[in-house]
């Protein structure tokens, strides 16, 4: 992550330079999209969330405190947005449950086949707290301290949560075999 670049991009965006914000989008659209996808498990919804995250970030850029890392701030928006989305979507899904099947879309299915489907399913069954640390650690490559900043929890909690998450993941995987 390029902290100096981020802060400079934020500063320039606040001065009205659109290209600086474009650079932020270039830098973070992929990780934010992947975080969203891992939480909501839908390509279309992950795209919608990614758009919302950047629009919200832009609108609230003045409230960003550069004492913290910019990407932590952005990830936090993405996680909150994804969890809120999932929560509201869950209610809609429960209403639609008896009408529609829950089968994933063909492109999602293809993707699942290509990557480890069992692992993906096991990950999906984890509690949000556990899922988040796994996503941030393994799929986004964040350090303990970075995860601690994104999730606003002590580093010690990150470690213990990560340990539990891995054990749960192991259990889920062994149940599937």
């Amino acid at each position: 992550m390029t902290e100096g670049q981020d802060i400079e991009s934020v500063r320039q965006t606040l001065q009205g330079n659109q290209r600086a914000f474009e650079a932020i989008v270039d830098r973070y659209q992929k990780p934010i999209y992947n975080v969203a996808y891992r939480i909501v498990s839908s390509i279309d919804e992950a795209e919608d969330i990614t758009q919302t995250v950047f629009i919200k970030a832009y609108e609230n850029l003045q409230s960003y405190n550069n004492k913290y890392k910019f990407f932590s701030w952005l990830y936090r928006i993405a996680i909150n947005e994804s969890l809120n989305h999932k929560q509201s979507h869950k209610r809609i899904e429960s209403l639609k449950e008896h009408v529609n099947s829950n089968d994933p879309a063909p492109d999602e299915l293809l993707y699942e086949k290509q990557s480890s489907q069992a692992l993906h399913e096991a990950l999906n069954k984890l509690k949000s707290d556990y899922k988040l640390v796994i996503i941030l650690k393994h799929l986004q490559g964040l350090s303990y301290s970075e995860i601690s900043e994104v999730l606003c929890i002590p580093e010690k909690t990150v470690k213990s949560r990560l340990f539990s998450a891995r054990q749960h993941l192991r259990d889920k995987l062994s149940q599937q075999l």
Partner: protein
Amino acid sequence: MISEKYIELIQQEVDGVNTPDQSSHLQEYLSQNSEAKVLFDELLMISNNLHEIHQLEPSENIKKIILNSINKNLYLKTNQQSLLSTLNTNSQTSINLQEGFMKGKLIISGILLAVVAVVYISFLYPWPANEDISGTIGGVKKYNAQQMSDKDVRLEGQTPENSSDNSTIEREASMFRSATIEQQAQIMRSADFQKVADLYRSLTIEKQAEIARTADVQRLADLYRSLTIEKQAEIARTADIQRLADLYRSLTIEKQAEIARTADVQRLADLYRSLTIEKQAEIARTADVQRLADLYRSLTIEKQAEIARTADVQKTADLYRSSELYKQADIERSATIERVAELYRSLTVEKQAEIARTADVHRLADLYRSLTIEKQAEIARTADVHRLADLYRSLTIEKQAEIARTADVHRLADLYRSLTIEKQAEIARTADVHRLADLYRSLTIEKQAEIARTADVHRLADLYRSAPIEMKDQLQRQAEIQNKAVQE
């Protein structure tokens, strides 16, 4: 049972953050504790599996949608500006807006050309110090007879150790110039520009000028364009603007024009915007406005328009306001009204509106008043009344009122009377009567009286008679409403 300490070590080992000591300590423990070893292996396997999950590529449209959805004006400060009232309103509108263009254009050209100068002249010292090129210049060894050493660099307040400094630098420069464009680019990409800039600054001004004079601008421009935007920005940041400006001024007008002609305006504008406001102001302060104006005029209309299109109006206006008054006056005086008007007209109405919105009405009014009556009349004559009226209407009522309040009614009346009857009629036809009446009412009673006193009744009557029937009806209705209101 595995103690908490070892669970943490296992976890850290899986994540690859243990120190070598911690790792060897853990390995020793694992060899003695089979339960811990099983746990470690399982966690490691899960971790490895997770790493195999691929990252998805977001759709290409996401970025476009985001950029189209954000409010682009959110962080653009909306300063405001001028115009006037009654029939005279429109002529003043033209004047103030025109003035705004003059400023905008010349500042833009001035600043961008200054940037061109800075960036390209920054290029005129592209031979790096020995330690910076040791890795890269190897590929061009045949050009590398002898590199510069520390003794070749004269620091501030230090006298040269021997008289061979200049010849060493000349040799280096000559070698660099004889290299192919790829080799030069290779050297440039690996260069430590801060060091190179220090080296360059250690030369005498005469030497620097000599280097500048012998530069093959086209080649340097090619070289420059082949670099990444970050590298270009790095070069710009290390530049000693005052010195570069001196250097630039010491070149012939032809050389300066050559530099200007080869500029990739869009890239330079990007580069310029990536600098800090202080650096931008520094560039603006060192600009020789008269010379830049000459230079600007020597460019083709397309090049000028390109410069105008890439301008960041708000920032340019801020910069302009931060420059000394005499400098601003220089800009005003050097303007060729027709050319500026032509340029302005070549812009989109959105760009024109952007320029109008950023104008500082009081300052423009002061500036305008400082011009001769002939210059003012010239501005009025070249105005595209319909376009200006559109522009004026696109402003807020507060901005319009501000314009009206700053108007020098007597002068405007003189100006208005100096126009042809056709121009006056054209102005009258484009007037939005209701809005003007609102505007008029928002003025102080003294200002209204002043306007009434300056009115040339006979001329107005002529004008009124020449107006289309719809406008007469509209005026009639307006008058009836006002009379009724007065009677009540």
